[in-house]
């Protein structure tokens, strides 16, 4: 039979010689190896106290951005929802009323904007699709929860807070 790779090593099926049959040399060698491992650096990170640094290209939880004047950038064009391969994004558009110019940047805005974090695969296509620079992926991730409903993030969870304003959901 032709070998599939050049890394295949034939199994040594020779009977054990006297030295190997005593088992003890092999056991001592093994014990020396495990003893060395006792003094090695531990691979585990004590998670809640100590956090692993993310890579610079890490794609985490989405936020909805505001412009320089604190107005929402999103115009509910729906391109992010179209781009989303997991179909995690839903939105409802609404028209900006007179007097709301300080809240919304364009004439149209998202009245409802939801991302289902259980569906989201954090691919970042929404960020790429957005023509208004409204949605960004941050370097945090969705905190765990016992309820499925908690993973449907609404606008109040996603929208970046205004300076001096507290978020409703501190983790979002």
């Amino acid at each position, binding site marked *: 039979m032709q070998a599939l790779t050049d890394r295949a090593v034939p199994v040594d099926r020779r009977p054990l010689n006297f030295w190997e*049959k005593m*088992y*003890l040399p092999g*056991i001592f060698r*093994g*014990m020396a*190896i*495990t*003893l060395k*491992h*006792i003094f*090695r*650096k*531990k*691979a*585990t990170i*004590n998670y809640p106290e100590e956090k692993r640094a993310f890579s610079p290209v890490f794609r985490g939880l989405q936020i909805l951005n505001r412009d320089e004047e604190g107005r929402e950038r999103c115009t509910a064009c729906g391109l992010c929802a179209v781009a989303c391969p997991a179909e995690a994004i839903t939105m409802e558009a609404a028209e900006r009323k007179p007097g709301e110019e300080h809240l919304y940047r364009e004439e149209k805005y998202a009245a409802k904007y939801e991302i289902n974090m259980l569906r989201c695969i954090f691919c970042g296509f929404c960020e790429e699709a957005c023509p208004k620079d409204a949605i960004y992926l941050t370097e945090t991730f969705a905190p765990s929860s016992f309820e499925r409903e908690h993973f449907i993030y609404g606008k109040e969870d996603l929208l970046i807070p205004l300076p001096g304003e507290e978020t409703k959901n501190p983790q979002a």
Partner: protein
Amino acid sequence: MILQIGTYLLVEKFILISIVLAISLLVAMYSTYAERKVAAVIQDRRGPNRAGPFGILQPLADGAKLFFKEEIIPSHSTRFLFILGPSLAMLTACMTGAVIPWGDSLHLGGHVVPLQVADVNIGILFIFGVVSLGVYGIMIGAWASNNKFSLLGGIRAASQIISYELAMGLSLIALLMLTGSLSLNDIVRQQHGFWKNGYFTWNFFRQPIGFLIFLVCAFAECNRTPFDLAECENELVNGYHTEYSSMKLGFYLFAEYVNMFISSAVMATLFFGGFNFPFMDHLGLSANWITILGVVALFVKTGFFIFLFMWVRWTIPRFRYDQLMKLGWKMLIPLALLNMVVTGGAALFFNH
């Protein structure tokens, strides 16, 4: 005939028994923690560190968890024997501690309190007898489960312990030729100090091969890796305790750790001088202090052997069944016999 036992002696022994039992259970409890910790550090992990500082409350959490689990007695099992199995395993595990001399005598206000529950003149035989009873706990539990995997595990445990007890006994005969006594107290006293007449006093340095055989057999007797074929997960689900749950399972697992502690203590006593430690006569301390330091020394030695048990467990894989039998019958027993003959010859040669 009325036995002339003073109330004082009765109280003294009762307190001593309680302390020995409590310490064996405590050590066994913390062995489970130590086992997980040792496994973790050997595998570059951290191990339990959430329950209390450094996770030292972990054994309590484990115990509480086992207590609150549902107690299942399979409907097709033999109910009485099913309960008897783990009880017997636990009972025999705790009985062995009685003959081990945990320390020299304490002098308390005119009374001499020997730190040994019972100085029987056949201490080693007692340990042997009780340890071989331990396998009945496994066998009875395994048979009563009415489960093929349990039964296979029980059969394995029984045949393994029978095979290795022979080699263990033979290795000890060589030791007994040198000590001339079966009493553990005598054996420890003969190993007084560390260095006398130009040679070590500890039996390990007279009987290294005997110790090696005894150590290997102790692993087998305790059903520890590499000889834990009785509970080999990948072949027998969980071996003899497959059908057990809740604290009955806990007793089986716990008995293993108590056994481990006791056999470590026996090894320290027989081969590593028990409560003797180097320079014990040159410290200039009072006899009571030497006794207390001796107890500490014994526990340090025991602790080392417990660590050795764990170290080996997390290093080498399980033996195959035929390898186990070959090692027992074709290597350890001949080696033990040879050791016996050589020791006998040497003893005759040096005495004449």
